[in-house]
């Protein structure tokens, strides 16, 4: 809510990102190394397995961080996909206006009426097992709201004098959209993008949890949680550690996004 909370959350996101990149080097254990002398060991400082190990003796600390890294990567890349499609589509619809705009936004409306999550599930079941496809199908779902936001912004920017001036100097549509519209819609877009990242991480881990997303030997927080649920009676840490990490990550991203949105709203008022 408050700025202090958002800043704190931002720091936490930073720490998690840092851990996800650098963490695996802090610990001597490898992601896929099997430590048969410490199978299903509970978390502790001795033995070097800080988060404990799973039933195959793999170190949970390294695996959790690796999973966080994969989740973050997919979150960022898929958000980039939604940004590319959403900005392009929204800016074109908003700037050209008229019948084109009407048709394009009608398309967005129809698409958002479809149960897209089921299509993502179907696509990943049917053609899945590839992280690249995961980016594309998740990104293809996420761009709708982005396009709406960009179009709304474009509509108001279009009326401003500098666009008129650009038209008067003879700039083409493509140039105006790329040089004058897009840089000016970036603010709200960035805010919405910070809220898109956790949504996409959630979707990715949801798919991975169902066994449809990231596949072994790669790990994602979703697959780790799915494994943890299976063993939660005998080895609850297998669930608590990755589950807690995912919850914390999503929470912090949401708080940062909300804080940014509030800050931007206050400016506009």
């Amino acid at each position, binding site marked *: *809510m*408050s700025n202090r*909370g958002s800043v704190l959350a931002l720091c936490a996101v930073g720490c998690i990102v840092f851990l996800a990149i650098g963490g695996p080097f802090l610990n001597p254990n490898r992601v896929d190394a099997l430590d048969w002398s410490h199978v299903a060991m509970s978390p502790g400082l001795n033995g070097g397995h800080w988060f404990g190990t799973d039933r195959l003796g793999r170190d949970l600390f390294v695996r959790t961080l690796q999973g966080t890294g994969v989740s973050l990567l997919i979150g960022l890349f898929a958000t980039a996909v939604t940004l590319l499609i959403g900005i392009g589509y929204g800016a074109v619809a908003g700037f050209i206006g008229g019948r084109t705009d009407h048709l394009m936004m009608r398309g967005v409306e*129809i698409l958002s*009426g*479809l*149960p897209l*999550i*089921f*299509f993502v*599930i*179907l*696509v990943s*079941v*049917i*053609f899945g097992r590839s992280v690249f496809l995961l980016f594309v199908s998740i990104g293809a779902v996420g761009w709708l709201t982005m396009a709406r936001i960009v179009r709304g912004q474009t509509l108001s920017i279009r009326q401003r004098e500098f666009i008129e001036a650009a038209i008067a100097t003879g700039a083409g549509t493509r140039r105006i959209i790329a040089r004058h519209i897009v840089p000016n819609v970036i603010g709200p877009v960035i805010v919405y993008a910070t809220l898109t990242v*956790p949504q996409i991480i*959630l979707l990715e*881990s*949801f798919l991975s*949890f*169902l066994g*449809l997303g990231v596949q072994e030997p790669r790990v994602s927080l*979703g697959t780790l*949680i*799915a494994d*943890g*649920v299976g063993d*939660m*009676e005998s080895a*609850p840490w297998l*669930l*608590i550690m990755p*589950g807690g990490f*995912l*919850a914390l990550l*999503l*929470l912090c*991203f*949401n*708080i940062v996004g*909300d804080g940014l949105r509030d800050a931007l709203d206050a400016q506009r008022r």
Partner: protein
Amino acid sequence: MIRYLLKRIAGAVPTLFIIITLTFFLVRAAPGGPFDQEQSLPPEIVANLQAAYGLDQPAWIQYRRYLTALLHGDFGPSYKYKDFTVTGLIAQGLPLSLTLGGVAMALALALGIPAGVFAALHHDSAAGYATMSLAVVGIAVPSFVVLPFLGLIFGIDLHWLPVAGWEPGSVKHLVLPVITLTLPPLAYIARLTRGGMLEVMQSHFVRTAFAKGLPTRTVIWRHALRPALLPVAGYLAPAVATIMTGSLVVESIAGLPGVGRYLVQGALNRDYTLVMGMVIVYSALLISAGLLVDLLYAWLDPRVRLAH
């Protein structure tokens, strides 16, 4: 009013048609078929099976047949659950899934709206902040983390409730799944109600109501609440979608025999008709939710005219 309804229902038909067509060709484009098994069957038997289900025909003939059967209300036989029709399978699981989802939705509304009103009225106090911080947690933490954590605490540690499993008619088994499904929409509804309420409290008619000397309680519940709920009404269709997706994992974690597992299992098994049936049922539910939202809008805000 009735004309509007009919128009909207007619408008939903093309959407449903697009969904059916897309899904039909999408599942058939997948590698593999419904009769692939670990031990592969002799090719003659596979050919016989395919002929029996009409799968040896060209795709567009299958498509036409499927649509014709669908118009007669027939979802076809399941390819994987032998001797079951898709209608039968869905009819078996749907009541439980609908109960879960319906109770979750009702709880989310019944608790979320008062929570949002409370947070709006105390928006500058610690209690208001605390409510909204809880809401962020509810929105952010996914159901497949919440349910196992609840299971750990209330099932394994405290032994109050079963972690998973199902006995017909048992309420105990439904408590944790329902709580899990309720949390995200509850949090969203609280947040939207708060936002709507804060805005409405600034408006002229609320000031007038206060100026007339009405008690705060009357102003809030009789005057301010209805317009403040507009954003909540808009959220209801996405909420239905949220609960549906949630039920996919919740039912599988809690081991409840609803329809949630059929979509993923059906797609994995290439059980074409089952996947189609599930997508159609879910889409129809979503579209109806959208229709309900439009009607609600008109009731909440007289300025929204249905005729258009």
